[in-house]
């Protein structure tokens, strides 16, 4: 809490007549702002509360829309719906593989951008920024045209990539697209970490006789590791949640969001809420635990 000091003397009278009296600011500061923030936070949490509450709903019919009473049925049979287990497996596998791929490629770029001077840095920075400034629908659509055209006469990559890899669409094209949109986010996250990094530590290691590779693994990597880990977590959560790009490049393969979307036209099973709640509570637990560990380590 920082108390803002009062003006030393009363402000000139002609100026004060034009502005609101000070007690209005006092009121805004001391109850309006905190109250507004609480309401906004409530707004942010409402859909999550609804999701968790309705995961315990003993719903009638096909749609889990109205509250009928408490039951644990959903949680006892969390994956009991055709196509759901397969879609969760696909989602987890795509998220894992694209996280590993994008984290490696993105960390390399981040290292190159922060530690070396080379020609074309501006162009590279622009290329990293562009995917983040492009609406997902445009990226998904352009990937779709590339993939489809790779199987058509006259399309780019036709004949370059073996037939059947990029078209028909499926797991491979989802994975390729997820790595693509994750790279930029990894670069930005890793760059932020490397920027606050003391280069003299590496020089010290070199002076003490370590070669470049040893220095990298024993000094550089441990220091940038928190950044790499944060980038990986971000990539994983972006991948597992992606709907728009995936819906363009998936063909008949379903990830969990795509499965949920395909099903909600005909039914809204409680399993959607249960799996959503599991992911939410799992993520909260991971963040909570890491915060507690951090707090202990800092003590």
């Amino acid at each position, binding site marked *: *809490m920082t108390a*803002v*000091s009062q*003006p030393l003397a009363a*402000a000139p009278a002609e100026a004060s007549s034009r*502005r609101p009296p000070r007690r209005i600011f006092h009121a805004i*500061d001391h109850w309006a702002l905190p109250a507004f*923030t609480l309401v*906004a936070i409530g*707004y*942010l949490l*409402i*859909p*999550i509360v*609804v999701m968790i509450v*309705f995961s315990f709903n003993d719903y009638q019919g096909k749609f889990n*829309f*109205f509250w009928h009473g408490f039951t644990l049925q959903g949680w006892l049979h969390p994956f009991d719906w055709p196509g759901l287990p397969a879609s969760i497996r696909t989602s987890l596998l795509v998220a894992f593989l694209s996280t590993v791929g994008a984290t490696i*490629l993105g960390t*390399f*770029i981040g*290292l*190159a951008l922060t530690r*070396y*001077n080379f020609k074309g840095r501006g162009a*590279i920075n622009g*290329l*990293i920024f562009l*995917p983040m*400034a*492009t*609406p*997902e*629908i*445009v990226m998904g*659509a*352009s990937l779709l*045209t*590339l993939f*489809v055209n790779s199987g*058509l006469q*006259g*399309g*780019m990559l036709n004949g370059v990539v073996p037939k059947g890899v990029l078209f028909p669409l499926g797991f491979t094209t989802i994975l*390729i*697209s997820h790595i693509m949109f994750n*790279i930029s986010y990894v670069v930005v996250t890793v760059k932020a970490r490397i920027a606050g990094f003391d*280069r003299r530590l590496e020089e010290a290691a070199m002076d003490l006789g370590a070669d470049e590779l040893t220095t990298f693994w024993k000094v550089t990597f441990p220091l940038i590791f928190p950044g790499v880990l944060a980038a990986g977590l971000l990539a994983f959560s972006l991948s597992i*949640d992606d*709907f*728009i790009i995936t819906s363009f490049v998936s063909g008949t393969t379903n990830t*969990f*969001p795509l499965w949920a979307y395909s099903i909600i036209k005909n039914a*809204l099973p409680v399993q959607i*809420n249960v799996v*959503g709640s599991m*992911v*939410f509570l799992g993520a909260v637990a991971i*963040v909570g635990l890491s*915060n507690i560990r951090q707090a202990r380590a800092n003590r």
Partner: protein
Amino acid sequence: MTAPSLPVHRGPTGPSLRQRVGRATPYLLLAPGILWLVIFFILPSIQMFLTSVSTGSLDDGFKLTWSGEAYFTSLTKFGTQFANSLIYGGIATLLTFMIGFPVAYTIAFRGGRWKNFLLFIVIAPFFTSFLIRTISWQIILQDNGPLLSFLRDTLHILPADASVLGTPIAVIAGITYNFLPFMILPLYVALEKIDPRLIEAANDLYASRWGAFRRVTIPLALPGIFAGSILTFIPALGDYVNVLLLGGPKTQMIGNVIQSRFLLLGDYPVAAALSFILMAAILVAVSIYARALGTEQLTG
């Protein structure tokens, strides 16, 4: 951000093998990731442009005819949807700012030891799927859902046939909700960095509370305002999920047209032209906005 380059010592006989590898290192590090982005980001964009000036169908293949027909169709037939995207996206961005700024300000300046916890709650929605959050809003906003029945049957401030789903209000509310954290986080980062002593200095120099806010806090928060509104407005313009789940036939946005042309109708040339126009509109809007705010700190 310019890191000093590694010193390269040249011997009398030119660079040694080791030095040559050393100089190639940045390019070796960049190559795989940049290649990936070129093949799967740049190349698709070129392919999409070529498709937009082609004619043909998915079954017969597309022939590059450099025809402007798709662009003509896009610009003449889909004015409503483009307008809807701009209006909904614009209003939602404004709303996220009006909600997000006080929240970010409170967390940054009054958060105290609750700062991290409050930030955690702000990003909590990200821990659930975008789609499931929107489905939850569908449950809340439907005609017999908790919100409408309360306003209509308990408070009697709405007529009996009132409904929200299918109207622009539902779509704007959904977009506002889904992108609010993208506004709060950059605003918070910018506000958090402000040294409170600058505001005190302004007060000591006889600035009013409002004057200090307008002349010190707001200018220093500009990069955050810029980043937040870009991060909200761009995805909002291209969004189609909120309309699919919360909107109706009258609230179609340009994303819905692109999606259905590509995935349902197979009309690639027009869909590609629409995507291109959307992208061009965004680039123009962002550069005008950057000029207007006087911040060019896009990439940070």
